[in-house]
């Protein structure tokens, strides 16, 4: 168990450094983007008012001081007040978070529920018509630009077929197209990887042995193959979940979905540093946590890793 603990400790340390680097880069980029105060005030605001607001936001202090203050507050979970919404950035982001979670989780669950069975069937029926069609669609899904996929879905399923609304958030119908768009890449990648992972295991000696001793094909697939193919599938699934966060920025823009991705883009235009910092920090933290959980899951699923 010590090997695994050491491994996880090292990963955790690296993850924390990564989070620090991400915060620093965002801090620098957002400061470079200019003074937000004139955007906040009416154009004819007196200079004294500009100075007052600047001081209120702490923007009159030197950059190193601002940076130190920033790091200190982030460590306490305080991202400052949103310049645009005039309330704590954390509260703003938390207000938009449920929409993104709803979209992201739906896309993710949809991707896994479709991709793993499809990949499995493709592997078992390899080089058949079913396999070729499934993998062809997966290839297209993997290389299609997310934003154009969204446009195509709107065009075909919404405007032509009239099945789903084009944008916004509401009942389940609103969720279908954004979730499909966001999940497409993950779905395609997971399906392709599942196929190759299962194929690899199906060739293994122990599968031949299991068949030879008369184990039913279902049992061979479910018990011997899927369990052994699970590790690479879980790895890519986790990575894809992280990538979903990036995809959410584009998908939410295409479908006018009121989540943190769209909030981030609007906040960049508004130069609302605290909100941008908070969103980026949230996404990076989510990515880090997910990958950490995957490492943990590895230890559970593969007993060899615990002793090594």
């Amino acid at each position, binding site marked *: 168990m010590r090997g695994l603990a050491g491994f996880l400790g090292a990963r955790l340390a690296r993850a924390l450094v990564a989070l620090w*680097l991400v915060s620093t880069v965002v801090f620098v980029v957002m400061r470079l983007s200019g003074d937000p105060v004139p955007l906040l005030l009416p154009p004819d605001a007196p200079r004294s008012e500009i100075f007052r607001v600047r001081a209120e936001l702490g923007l009159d202090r030197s950059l190193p001081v601002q940076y130190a203050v920033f790091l200190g507050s982030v460590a306490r979970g305080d991202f400052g007040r949103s310049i645009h919404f005039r309330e704590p950035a954390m509260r703003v982001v938390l207000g938009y978070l449920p929409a993104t979670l709803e979209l992201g989780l739906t896309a993710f669950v949809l991707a896994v529920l479709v991709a793993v069975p499809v990949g499995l069937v493709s592997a078992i029926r390899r080089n058949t018509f079913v396999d070729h069609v499934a993998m062809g669609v997966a290839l297209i899904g993997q290389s299609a630009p997310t934003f154009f996929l969204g446009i195509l879905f709107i065009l075909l399923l919404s405007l032509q077929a009239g099945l789903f609304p084009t944008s916004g958030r509401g009942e389940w119908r609103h969720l279908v197209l954004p979730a499909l768009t966001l999940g497409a890449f993950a779905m395609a990648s997971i399906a392709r990887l599942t196929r190759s992972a299962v194929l690899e295991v199906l060739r293994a000696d122990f599968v031949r042995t299991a068949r030879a001793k008369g184990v039913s094909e279902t049992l061979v697939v479910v018990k011997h193959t899927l369990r052994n193919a699970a590790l690479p599938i879980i790895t890519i699934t986790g990575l894809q979940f992280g990538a979903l966060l990036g995809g*959410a920025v584009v998908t939410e823009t295409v479908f006018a979905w009121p989540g943190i991705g769209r909030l981030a883009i609007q906040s960049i235009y508004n130069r609302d540093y605290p909100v941008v910092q908070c969103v980026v920090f949230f996404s990076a933290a989510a990515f880090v946590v997910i990958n950490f959980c995957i490492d943990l899951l590895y230890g559970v699923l593969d007993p060899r890793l615990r002793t090594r």
Partner: protein
Amino acid sequence: MASSIPVSVPADLAAPRRRVPWGAVAGVAFVIALFAMAAAAPLLAPHDPVRQSLRVRLKPPTLEGADGFAHPLGTDHLGRDVLSRVIYGSRVSLFIGFAAVVVGGLIGATLGIVAGYRGGWADTVIMTVADAQLAFPFILLAIGIIAVLGPSFPTLVVVVGLSGWVAYARVLRSQVLVLRSREFVDAIHGLGGSAMRIVLRHILPNVLSSLVVVATLELARAIVLEATLSFLGLGIQPPTPSWGGMIHEGREYLDSAWWISTFPGLTLMLTSLVVSRLGDWLRDVLDPTLRGE
């Protein structure tokens, strides 16, 4: 003496050991055609891509428009010919795509080789930065940087290039790590060869094929990222035609003029599909060990 009598050869001997699949040939042909299209855009495009003609606004694909000209892919909201704009748009996509691959490749390959060859703290620092970059949605950083510097060709090239360096660095680092401990490196070192000489003359040629594979896969990604940024309004600015920008412009007319977004979108999708397939194929031929990277 040449004979016209067919000689029967066992099939497994007659077939070359590794036949080039027709898909790869088609892929290469497609990329060459795309290049030719970008280079010869002024000759190929039937119309000036930025000339507006309000008389033929939002006209569906037609071979005989109201202005007496053919618009095989229709016209957009300003009466510009969509086909001509798609043809000219390939210039933006290919130019930024390639330039970004060069920028990302130079940075990533250098850092990857340094990390693999030097090891130690240099390795730790470089790979931590790489992890950090992978840990958050790069598109947000790209948008932030472009918002600061303003959208322009050089900014886009740098941003799209920077987005890709990690892929090169990771692949090259792991390969150099293996190469470094090989005898020939020790031998050159023993003979007094400098580290620079070992890297440039002996390690670089050994990792070149991986570099080509990663660069091809990255080209597809770079083209899509540029289009995504242009779609968000942060890429090439109007009136210069770019595929992403055209999709953005056509978005408002999806229900009345579907062709404005659809044709550049399909071209983009096809390009991305073909180039990434080409990368997959190159990987299988040149360097199967890269699978799963």
